[in-house]
C-alpha cells in the first residue's frame, strides 16, 4: 500500500490542507518541513484517525478536541464538520499461467465526524468511514472499509507505520514498565505474521463469552428514552439538509459534465483541419476503442463472477463427495426399482392415442374415451403411491451431470477459469496499450501551436478540477449520511431494547467454561508461531542498527550487537558480550536509531508494502549518524514520509536532493512576528502549506532565523 494524497478539513490546526506523497520507487521519500507547532504531530494523528478512527488518537481520543481551537461558533455555527480524506494505492500480485501479474488499484477513504461546540465544552459524534474504488469510469463505494484497511495496514502494526519520533522510543523507553515494552514489541511482531485468523477466532470466542454474560443480565428502563428520541429527531433534520446538499451537488456534477462534453466538441471541431483533423480522428477512434475494451472488460469480469454460480464449480468442489449417494442410486437401478417406467409409458400412450394392445384411446370414440379414463386413473394411483420412486428416478438421471470427471479428463471449472484469466489479462493488456496510445496522441495535440485548442484544453482542465471538487463533496456528504444512518440504527435499537426488558435462562457457567478452554488452545498456537519470526526481526534489526550508528564490531566498537530476546526485550551488547541497558547506556541518537532500526526491520520482514510515516525522527541526532539514519531509512522503506524541523534537515540536504520525490513546507501564521519575517495575512489559527523545499523559502514560510534566503517563485520567494 502506498499513500497518494491526503486532505484534511477542520482537524485542529489543519483547517483546509491538501498534500501529495511521493510514490516513486527511486525517490520514495516525502518530506513535510515544519517548525514546532506547525502541524506535524497533528498531521500524523489526522492520518491515523482517517485510517483507524478514534482508537488511533492519543488516549483513544477521550476528551481530545478535534475541531480548530478558535472555531467561531457564532459565525460558523455550533456544529463543526471534521473530515480526513486519504487516497492510496494497493499493489496486488497473482499467479497466471505466464508467471506473476501485478495490478494496482486506487482507493479513496473518507472519514468524517462532527463536533458540537458549546463554549468550552464539545461533544463528538461517532465517526463514519467510506471507501471508494477509484477507476477511470468513476468511483464505486466498497463494503466493509474497515476490513480492507485492516488487511493492508493491520491495526497492531500502527505504531510501526506511524511513528512519533519521541514516542518511537516506546519500545525501549525507560519510563515504562518492562512488561509494557515487552508487550509492545510482542504485539508488533505478532501482527507481522498475519495471525488474523487465530486472533479473529480468539475474539470470536471472547465475544461469545460476552454474549453469554449479557444474556444473563437484566435490563432496566431509564429516562434515557427522552434524550434518544430528541437525538433521533436531530438526525432526521440533518439528513434532510444533507439530502438537499447532495441533490445540489449532483446537479452541479451533471452541469459540469455537460460543459466538458461541450468543450470536447469544440476541441474536436477546432482540430478538424489537415493533420490535426487526422490526429483528432485518431484520438476519437482511440477513445471509442477504449470504450469498447472497457465494455468487454466488464463482460469478462462478469463472466469470471458467473463461474461461481455454475455447475462446473459444484463438480469441481464436490469431487467424490457424492459417491455414497451414487452407489445407493446405482443399486436401486440394478434392482430395477428405478426408473419409474409405468407412468411415463402410460403418459406416452395417452399422447399417442392408442394402447399398447392397439386399441384406441381417443376421446372421440366412446370405448376409447372409457379406456382413456381408465389409463388416467391408473396414472393418478401410481403417482400417489410412488412419490419416492418418482423423485429418485428424476434424481438418478438428473444427477448424471454432477458426476466427477473421468480419469484423465481435466476439471471443467479449471478449464473455464483459465479461459477467463486469458481473456481478462489479454483485455487488460490491450486496455493499457490503448490508454498509452491515447496519452501519446493527446501529447502530440498539445504540442501543436494552436492557441485556441490550448485554451480550450485549459478550460477543460479547469472544469475537470471543479468536477473533482464536486465529486469530493458528494463523497463527503455520502459519508456523513452513512454516519447518520448508522447512528440512527444504533439509537433505535437502544430505544427498542429499553422497552423490552427480559431475563434469559441460565446454562451460563457451562458455556463460559467451554469458551475459556477453546480460548486457551488458540492462545498456545498463537504463541508458538510468534517465536519463529522473532529471530528474523532480531537479525535484521542488528544489521540496520550497526550500520546506522557506524559501529564496526571487528574494530572493537563500543556497541557490538543488538537483539530482540525471546522475552521480547530489545537488548544491546558491548565488548565481551557485556549487556548494555538501551534506556541508560545509549546516547539519545543511538536510542532513536535503535528503535527506527527495529521499526524498519519489522516492516521489511513482514514483506508488507506499506508506508512508514515518522514525525521528527532525527531529533537529537547530528553529523554522520543523522545522515546515515536518513539514508538507511529511505533506502529500506517502500514509502517513507518524514515530518522534519528545519534543524533536522540541516546537513541532510544532499540526501533529500537525491531521495525525496515530494517536499513541502507547513507554516503556522501565529508565529508572525516573532519567528516569521512576513505576515501570512490570515487571522485564523491554521497551518498554511507552500511548495518550498528543503533548500528554499518564500514570503509565507521565510523565518527570522533563516540564514541564507535566495529568490524563487517570481520574485516572491528565495532559494
Amino acid at each position: 500500500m502506498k499513500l497518494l494524497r491526503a486532505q484534511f478539513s477542520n482537524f485542529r490546526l489543519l483547517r483546509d490542507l491538501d498534500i501529495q506523497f511521493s510514490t516513486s520507487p527511486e525517490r520514495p521519500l516525502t518530506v513535510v518541513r515544519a517548525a514546532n507547532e506547525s502541524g506535524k504531530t497533528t498531521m500524523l494523528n489526522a492520518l491515523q484517525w482517517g485510517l483507524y478512527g478514534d482508537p488511533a488518537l492519543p488516549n483513544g481520543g477521550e476528551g481530545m478536541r478535534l475541531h480548530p481551537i478558535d472555531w467561531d461558533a457564532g459565525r460558523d455555527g455550533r456544529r463543526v464538520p471534521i473530515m480526513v480524506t486519504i487516497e492510496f494505492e494497493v499493489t496486488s500480485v497473482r499467479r497466471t499461467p505466464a508467471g506473476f501479474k501485478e495490478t494496482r488499484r486506487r482507493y479513496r477513504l473518507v472519514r468524517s465526524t462532527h463536533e458540537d461546540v458549546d463554549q468550552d465544552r464539545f461533544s463528538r459524534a461517532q465517526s463514519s468511514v467510506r471507501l471508494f474504488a477509484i477507476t477511470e469510469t468513476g468511483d464505486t463505494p466498497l463494503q466493509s472499509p474497515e476490513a480492507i484497511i485492516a488487511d493492508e495496514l493491520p491495526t497492531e502494526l500502527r505504531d510501526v507505520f506511524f511513528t512519533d519520533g519521541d514516542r518511537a522510543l516506546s519500545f525501549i523507553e525507560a519510563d515504562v514498565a518492562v512488561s509494557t515494552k515487552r508487550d509492545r514489541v510482542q504485539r508488533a511482531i505478532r501482527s507481522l505474521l498475519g495471525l488474523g485468523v487465530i486472533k479473529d477466532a480468539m475474539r470470536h470466542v471472547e465475544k461469545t463469552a460476552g454474549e453469554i454474560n449479557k444474556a444473563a443480565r437484566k435490563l432496566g428502563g431509564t429516562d434515557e428514552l427522552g434524550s434518544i428520541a430528541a437525538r433521533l429527531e436531530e438526525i432526521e433534520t440533518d439528513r434532510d439538509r444533507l439530502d438537499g446538499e447532495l441533490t445540489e451537488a449532483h446537479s452541479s456534477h451533471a452541469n459540469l459534465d455537460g460543459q466538458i462534453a461541450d468543450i470536447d466538441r469544440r476541441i474536436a471541431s477546432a482540430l478538424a483541419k489537415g493533420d490535426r483533423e487526422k490526429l483528432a480522428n485518431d484520438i476519437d477512434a482511440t477513445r471509442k476503442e477504449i470504450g469498447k475494451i472497457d465494455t468487454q472488460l466488464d463482460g469478462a469480469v462478469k463472466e469470471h463472477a458467473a463461474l461461481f454460480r455454475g455447475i462446473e464449480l459444484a463438480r469441481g468442489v464436490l469431487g467424490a463427495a457424492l459417491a455414497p449417494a451414487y452407489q445407493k442410486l446405482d443399486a436401486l437401478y440394478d434392482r430395477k426399482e428405478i426408473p419409474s417406467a409405468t407412468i411415463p409409458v402410460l403418459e406416452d400412450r395417452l399422447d399417442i392415442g392408442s394402447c399398447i394392445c392397439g386399441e384406441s384411446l381417443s376421446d372421440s370414440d366412446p370405448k376409447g374415451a372409457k379406456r382413456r379414463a381408465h389409463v388416467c386413473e391408473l396414472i393418478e394411483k401410481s403417482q400417489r403411491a410412488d412419490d419416492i420412486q418418482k423423485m429418485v428416478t428424476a434424481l438418478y438421471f438428473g444427477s448424471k451431470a454432477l458426476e466427477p470427471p473421468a480419469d484423465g479428463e481435466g476439471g471443467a471449472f479449471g478449464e473455464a477459469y483459465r479461459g477467463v484469466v486469458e481473456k481478462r489479462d489479454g483485455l487488460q493488456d490491450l486496455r493499457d496499450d490503448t490508454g498509452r496510445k491515447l496519452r501519446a496522441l493527446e501529447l502530440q495535440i498539445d504540442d501543436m501551436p494552436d492557441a485556441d485548442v490550448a485554451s480550450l484544453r485549459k478550460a477543460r482542465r479547469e472544469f475537470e478540477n471543479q468536477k473533482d471538487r464536486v465529486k469530493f463533496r458528494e463523497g463527503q456528504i455520502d459519508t456523513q449520511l452513512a454516519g447518520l444512518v448508522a447512528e440512527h440504527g444504533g439509537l433505535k435499537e437502544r430505544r427498542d431494547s429499553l422497552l423490552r426488558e427480559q431475563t434469559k435462562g441460565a446454562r451460563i457457567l457451562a458455556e463460559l467454561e467451554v469458551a475459556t478452554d477453546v480460548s486457551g488452545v488458540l492462545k498456545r498456537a498463537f504463541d508458538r508461531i510468534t517465536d519463529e519470526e522473532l529471530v528474523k526481526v532480531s537479525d535484521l534489526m542488528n544489521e540496520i542498527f550497526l550500520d546506522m550508528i557506524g559501529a564496526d564490531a571487528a574494530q572493537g566498537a563500543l556497541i557490538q550487537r543488538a537483539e530482540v530476546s525471546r522475552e521480547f526485550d530489545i537488548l544491546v551488547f558491548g565488548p565481551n558480550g557485556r549487556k548494555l541497558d538501551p534506556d541508560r547506556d545509549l546516547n539519545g541518537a543511538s536510542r532513536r536509531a535503535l528503535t527506527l532500526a527495529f521499526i524498519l526491520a519489522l516492516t521489511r520482514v513482514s514483506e508488507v508494502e506499506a508506508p512508514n510515516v515518522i514525525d521528527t525522527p532525527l531529533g537529537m541526532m547530528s553529523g554522520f549518524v543523522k545522515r546515515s539514519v536518513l539514508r538507511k531509512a529511505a533506502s529500506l522503506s517502500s514509502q517513507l514520509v518524514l515530518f522534519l524541523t528545519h534543524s533536522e534537515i540541516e546537513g541532510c540536504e544532499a540526501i533529500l536532493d537525491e531521495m525525496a520525490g515530494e517536499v513541502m513546507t507547513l507554516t503556522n501564521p501565529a508565529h508572525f512576528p516573532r519567528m516569521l519575517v512576513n505576515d501570512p495575512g490570515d487571522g485564523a489559527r491554521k497551518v498554511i502549506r507552500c511548495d518550498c523545499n528543503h533548500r528554499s523559502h518564500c514570503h509565507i514560510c521565510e523565518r527570522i532565523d533563516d540564514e541564507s534566503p535566495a529568490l524563487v517563485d517570481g520574485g516572491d520567494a528565495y532559494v
Partner: protein
Amino acid sequence: MSDRYFNPFASVDILVPTEFKEDFGRFCQTGGRAVIDHSPFPRMVDLWFLAVCVAARKGLDPAEIDRRDTYKIIDGSIFSSDPWRVHTLMMIAISQSNDVGIVVEPRRMMSLANGLATAGFPHVMDMLKDGDAEPIWNLSEAIETLERDAA
C-alpha cells in the same frame, strides 16, 4: 403429468447465522454497485451453496444452528432456475443421511444443507482471503486447487 424440474425446496427458507451477515454483504454483489473483484458472488445463494459444497467435500459435520440467531437470505424457490442445484442438495442429503427416502423431506434436507453451509462458511472465507490478490482471484485459485486435488 409429472414435472421433471419439480423444486421441493420452493417454500423452505435458506438460513444463515446472523454473525455471517456482514461477510455476506461484503462478498456478494446483491444490492448493486459492488466491485466484482472484491465481491465475487453474484447472489448470496451462490456463497451459501459453495459453503454447502465445501463442507460436503471436506467431510465436515453439519453445524447446529437451531439455537443460533439466524436470518433468511432467500427461500428455496430460487433453485427453480437451476434444477441441478436441487439435485446436488438431494445427493448431498442422501450421502449424509444414508437414506434415499430423505428426498421427499425437503425441510430435513434443507436443515442439513443449512448446517453444512454454516460449517463450510469459515473455509470459504479462508479461500477468499488467503492470497495476495483480490478475493475473486484468491477464490478461483483455491477452487482450482480443490478440483485438481480431486482428480
